[in-house]
């Protein structure tokens, strides 16, 4: 399957040199790498905040940092991880790189807009960093009013402005993807021949376009309220803090699907390749992505169950929240059915995919627990919730992201990563992750509140386990950071299609030339049709 090493031809990395060729590039592949560097840096910072949090939580008294500093730490951890890492991560790196390649065109619909998106993202990120350096925020990433608007004495407006700016980056990227996928597919590439990664990027982009403007205006209103005290969220002036929560979660719930849908797209690709089998129920998986995108906008009230939202509305939102679990479950069933009687191999991306399926299922099921009104009243604002969303975001998306990075690394860099170290890291990540977050389910159920830096001694054992797990998890992340960089210089040269995958991105060189394809491909076969590869070899 692995053919002879390809000689270095002109590819998008070698086409031009110099810093200007990177900072003024319109090539979606280079922009993807610009994003990769930026989000990796923000991930590292988010991890630093998490480290200090977990160190503080080793002992019951709040003795490492002051209460307000702790509030700043979890706020910044959330802000950096969500807005500056998770939301851009897969779309802006793998999405940017792969969407044109997978649909057989030369670039996105609006390459200059793509570069602008990156600069907007950097500007917003820089502002958030500046706000952090001069003092940060202590409102939580959720900015709940009236604390954020009337009482906080930290840099709320500055941070909110930074996030506001990065929101535009998200909108423009989503817009670019939607137009590209609709209008620029290669001849013969009908909607139902598209790779499932494209379907999930499409659904993600729809959420980005429809949801992000609402968080933008919400943050704007927070800034106006804080600056001019007009009263929209201040009970003293007749305003309603719950209105803020409605506005905030209208975006922030779909946002979590912005974070997980791309990961699901990656899993579909990876499961198929390493089972040598087409995805079971392709149309169901494709439509489930769209269904998730739409349903995700109907459930936000489940964040307001204990916020004086009416019981009637809470019942409606609870029911809808159960409904949104269905398409996700359909995906899990279809991935499992794909594995059945497949010819399975255990390369690193597949290990991450297995991890995803298991951990996402746990996270998703605990989501249905939280959608149950009675149970939610008991565990809301406890570590149960914290564990739930980390199972999905870290156990889910992060693992999918790492799996995807490994899977497409040969295509992106023309180099193979070291398989032995990669498998080891995957295992370390899986073990570290579970040790970090499983105890959090237990202590949350037992009553440990979230966002507290001091706690009763009976919870200490769980916190110690969790912090131990976090250190293992950190090692699991550091090792790939090292070998990925190492591989760019010393990694084995990669062939065009090291995994024997279908998909147009594998029909061009590794790395691809600047315009992606020597000649525009014409597609006459379905996605995941492995028999075609045999024909190509023979023909």
């Amino acid at each position, binding site marked *: 399957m692995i053919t002879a090493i390809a000689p270095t031809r002109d590819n998008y990395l070698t086409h031009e040199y110099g810093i200007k060729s990177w900072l003024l590039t319109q090539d979606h592949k280079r922009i993807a790498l610009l994003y990769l560097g930026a989000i990796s840096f923000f991930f590292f910072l988010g991890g630093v905040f998490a480290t200090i949090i977990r160190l503080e939580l080793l002992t019951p008294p709040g003795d490492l940092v002051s209460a307000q500093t702790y509030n700043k730490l979890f706020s910044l951890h959330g802000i950096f991880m969500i807005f500056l890492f998770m939301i851009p991560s897969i779309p802006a790196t793998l999405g940017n790189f792969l969407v044109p390649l997978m649909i057989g065109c030369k670039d996105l619909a609006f390459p200059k807009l793509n570069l602008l998106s990156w600069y907007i993202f950097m500007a917003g990120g820089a502002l958030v960093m500046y706000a952090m350096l001069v003092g940060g925020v202590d409102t939580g990433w959720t900015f709940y009013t009236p604390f954020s608007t009337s009482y906080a004495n930290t840099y709320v407006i500055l941070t909110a402005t930074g996030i506001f700016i990065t929101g535009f980056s998200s909108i423009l990227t989503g817009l670019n993807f939607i137009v590209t996928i609709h209008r620029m597919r290669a001849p013969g590439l009908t909607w139902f021949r598209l790779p499932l990664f494209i379907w999930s990027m499409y659904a993600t982009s729809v959420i980005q376009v429809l949801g992000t403007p609402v968080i933008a*205006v919400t943050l704007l209103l927070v800034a106006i309220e804080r600056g001019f005290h007009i*009263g929209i969220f201040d009970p003293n002036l*007749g305003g309603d803090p719950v*209105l803020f929560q409605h506005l905030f979660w209208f975006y922030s719930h779909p946002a979590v699907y912005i974070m997980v849908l791309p990961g699901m797209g990656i899993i579909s690709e990876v499961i198929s390749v390493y089972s040598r089998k087409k995805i079971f129920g392709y149309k169901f998986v494709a439509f489930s992505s769209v269904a998730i995108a739409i349903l995700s906008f109907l459930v936000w009230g489940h964040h307001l169950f204990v916020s004086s939202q009416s019981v009637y509305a809470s019942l409606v939102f609870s029911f809808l929240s159960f409904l949104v679990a269905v398409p996700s479950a359909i995906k899990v069933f279809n991935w499992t059915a794909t594995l059945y009687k497949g010819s399975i191999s255990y390369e690193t991306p597949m290990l991450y995919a297995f991890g995803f399926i298991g951990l996402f299922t746990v996270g998703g099921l605990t989501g249905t627990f939280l959608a149950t009104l009675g149970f939610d009243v008991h565990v809301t604002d406890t570590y149960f919730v914290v564990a739930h969303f980390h199972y999905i975001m870290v156990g889910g998306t992060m693992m999918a992201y790492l799996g995807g990075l490994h899977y497409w690394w040969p295509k992106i860099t023309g180099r193979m990563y070291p398989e032995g170290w990669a498998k080891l890291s995957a295992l370390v990540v899986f073990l570290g992750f579970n040790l970090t977050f499983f105890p959090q389910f237990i202590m949350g159920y037992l009553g440990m509140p979230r966002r507290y830096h001091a706690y009763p001694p009976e919870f200490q054992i769980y916190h110690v386990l969790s912090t131990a797990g976090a250190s293992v998890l950190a090692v699991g992340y550091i090792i790939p950071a090292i070998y990925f960089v190492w591989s760019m210089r010393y990694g084995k040269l990669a062939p065009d299609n090291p995994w024997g995958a279908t998909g147009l991105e594998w029909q061009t060189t590794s790395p691809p030339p600047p*315009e992606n394809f020597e000649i525009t491909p014409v597609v006459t076969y379905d996605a995941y049709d492995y028999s075609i590869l045999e024909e190509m070899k023979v023909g």
Partner: protein
Amino acid sequence: MANHSLALRHQFDDVAQQKEASTFGMWLFLATEVLFFGGMFLCYTIYRRWYPVAFGMGSNHLSLMLGAVSTAVLICSSYFMACSVNSAANGKKKALVAYLAMTIVLAIAFLVIEMSEWHMLYTEGLMPGFNFTYHEMDPRHVQLFFGLYFSMTGLHASHVTIGIIVLTVMAVRAYRGAFTPDYYTPIEMSGLYWHFVDLVWIFLFPLYYLIARHLQ
């Protein structure tokens, strides 16, 4: 068609695809703007339901005449914008520049009227965050009304300002002969943006200026 391969970007197969993509992209952007303004419309909806009397009193302090005239001015500007698109499609360069100029003039007129309304409210002590003093009943909720009024009209005015800048750039490019009947997409896209700005005001006017006017 030959010289318009200059306007054709390399990622597109032909000019038609490029134009379709631009239009589609612009509509997606306008959808985001609907939701952006929409958040503030939500706040308005909630508080008007809760404080109908206070909102009525606030509305009566706005100048109905200035509001109605602003509405007419923007509708006129939309008409001129549409005419400029028509001129571009027919290759009439002078008419194109003239209509764009008239659109810009009316846009500036709109801002002038708006600023005078704001100034008037400021001198009456009705600008929250600055000098808000209201001695009749329910001052807190009237303050809420004006807070929302200034936020929404302010957001709208910022969009008008951006529109003026964009249209000025378009007028200069048109004057320099950048557009022909085969390629006038930027004019159309600017037109879509400008009409959207008009649309927002079409809702702002009745919602802010026409509450309980019969009491006045």
